[in-house]
Each structure stands twice: as structure tokens, then as C-alpha cells.
């Protein structure tokens, strides 16, 4: 089975998903996983697409079938091969890291630098800008061996430097 990463982004308008997924279906592509959202008025699609039927269909064929659509809708597209055996091993305990404060360049990179230095793995991250307020919320898996209080202390130091607030909480499981 061939797995492709497909990213498409462009000014939002009705019909982008229908056109892009329609083209992928035409060549027998299955959407294995996807994330689609509007970012600053641009519609962004990130897809993992599997091709299992026709050996003639590869990433070049997918690029070719997407080309007329991206041209007519004014979209930028990327198509690339990815490994079909990603490592799903859990790294540790889930935490939610919230950051908020006055907007300035470098907040995400500084905070994520601290998390990465502890081996923390970010599985999801959202940022919002609202007036002067910048908000970052990240789902982070922290290795079991990490002393969470040490990570907190490092993040507190980064927060003081950046003039923002940072909170680290254990992710609560869904309550059924």
C-alpha cells in the first residue's frame, strides 16, 4: 500500500473539499486521516491518502489529477510519499499546556523549545489571536521519566521571560 501526504491550502470558498476529494477518489485514493480547517481566511487541508488498487497510480498521478483543480480554485498543493509504518508507541502521560498573554513574536517557539528539551511530544496545537491577546493550547505527551515539576519550573521561567501565563494540567479523561 502506498501512503501519500497531501496538503492543500487557499482562500476559502465553497467547494474546495468536494473538488479535492473528488479528484482523489477518481484515482482510487482513500482518506486514511485528515484535518481541515480555516486559518486566517484560508482553507487548509492536511490528508493522509492511501492508494492500494492500481499500481499505475502513484504520487505523480495524484499531482496530475489535482493540478486542474488547484489551478482553477487558486490553491497551493503538496503531494509526497510517507512511510506507512509510523511509530504509535505512547511516549508518556497526556498534559494540556495553555499559554496566554500579549502578542509578540517567538511565543510558540520559546514554549515548544522547552517542551521539546524534555522530550515532550505535541499531538495537537491551536493558536488564537484576539486583539492583543495571543493564546496557545497544546496537547502534549510527556515521557514518564520526566519530573513534571521540573518541566513546570522551566515553563515558568519562559513565561516570565515572555511576559505570558503558562499553565500545565494533566489531561482529564472524558467523563462518561
Amino acid at each position, binding site marked *: 500500500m502506498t501512503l501519500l501526504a497531501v496538503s492543500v491550502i487557499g482562500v476559502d470558498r465553497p467547494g474546495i473539499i468536494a473538488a479535492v476529494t473528488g479528484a482523489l477518489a477518481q484515482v482510487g485514493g482513500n482518506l486514511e486521516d485528515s484535518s481541515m480547517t480555516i486559518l486566517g481566511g484560508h482553507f487548509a487541508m492536511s490528508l493522509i491518502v492511501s492508494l492500494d488498487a492500481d499500481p499505475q497510480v502513484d504520487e505523480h498521478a495524484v499531482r496530475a489529477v489535482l493540478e486542474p483543480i488547484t489551478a482553477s480554485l487558486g490553491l497551493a498543493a503538496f503531494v509526497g510519499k510517507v512511510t506507512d509504518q509510523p511509530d504509535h508507541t505512547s511516549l508518556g502521560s497526556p498534559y494540556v499546556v495553555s499559554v496566554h498573554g500579549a502578542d509578540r513574536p517567538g511565543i510558540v517557539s520559546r514554549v515548544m523549545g522547552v517542551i521539546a528539551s524534555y522530550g515532550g511530544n505535541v499531538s495537537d496545537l*491551536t493558536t488564537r489571536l484576539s486583539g492583543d*491577546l495571543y493564546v496557545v*493550547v497544546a496537547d502534549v505527551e510527556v515521557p514518564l521519566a520526566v519530573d513534571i515539576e521540573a518541566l513546570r519550573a522551566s515553563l515558568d521561567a519562559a513565561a516570565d521571560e515572555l511576559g505570558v*501565563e503558562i499553565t500545565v494540567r494533566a489531561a482529564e479523561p472524558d*467523563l462518561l
Partner: protein
Amino acid sequence: MIRAVVLAPERVLSRPALDVDPGDPTVVQLAADLVDTMRAYPGCVGLAAPQIGDGRRVFCLDVTGHPKAKSCAGLVVLANPVLVSGEAPKVGREGCQSVPDLTGDVARFRRVLVRGLVVGTGAERTYEADAFEARAFQHELDHLAGVLFLDRVAGAHAIFQRKTYR
């Protein structure tokens, strides 16, 4: 007097507020201003002193007529309030006058016991609240601890731009 509501990232919203003397005339005035300001904002069901730029432990709330409210104590004004107990956490979406463009999913207790002092007399008063009123109590108590709902959102997919319609 109606006061201006302070917006994040104003730092007063992220600092723990300080206990007050409930008989202090300036505290009585602060409480009156909080109620006037809450009433002036349509849909506002609670306001804590840091939200009008005052780092003292006073808040007001009133969930009267709110469709999600079950318990309803009417107008509540408390100084130095504390959460005595809480049970049955539940995730729900909430917003804040100080973060006007965003909402978030936050786990809160469904039932709470909150104790504080009546502004003016200083008498101790305990409230038992559930559902939306319990959420409002916890949101206001958080403000007095320098905590915003942004600090408690359930995850990266639990924060939302408030919808605006053109």
C-alpha cells in the same frame, strides 16, 4: 457606577486578588460598581473585581432567567469567597467578558458549596449551587485566583472563536 471591563492580556486578570474587610466603605462601593457593570453588559451573569481592574476578592453573579440555570440564588455578592466543596465534574462551553472573542470547553463541578462574607455586614453566607450557577461561581472564584478559563480549557480542540455574523 458602571466601570470599564478590563480585557486579557491585562496582568491584573492573572494575579491572585487579596482578601478584603467586608465593612470597608470602599469595598461596599466596589461591590456596587461590580453589580452596576454586570447589569450594563447584556448577557453578563457574573463579574469579579479584577475584571474592573481591582485586585480585591469580591465578585457578584446573577443567573436569574438563564436557560441553563437550575439553582438560582438571585443576585449574589460575596467578599473573600471560598469553594468549600464540589462534585460531579462536567465539561461545558464558557466565555468571559474579559476574553470577548473566544470561548472554551472547561470541566467544572456540577454541584458546589461556596462560602463567603456579605459585603457591608460581614456576615458569613453559604450558597449551594448546581448546573449553570455552579459554573458561574467557579468561573468567578477563578478570577479571584488570577485564573482565566483559558488556563483550564480541555485541550487544543477545546478553544473557539466566538461566532460573528455579518
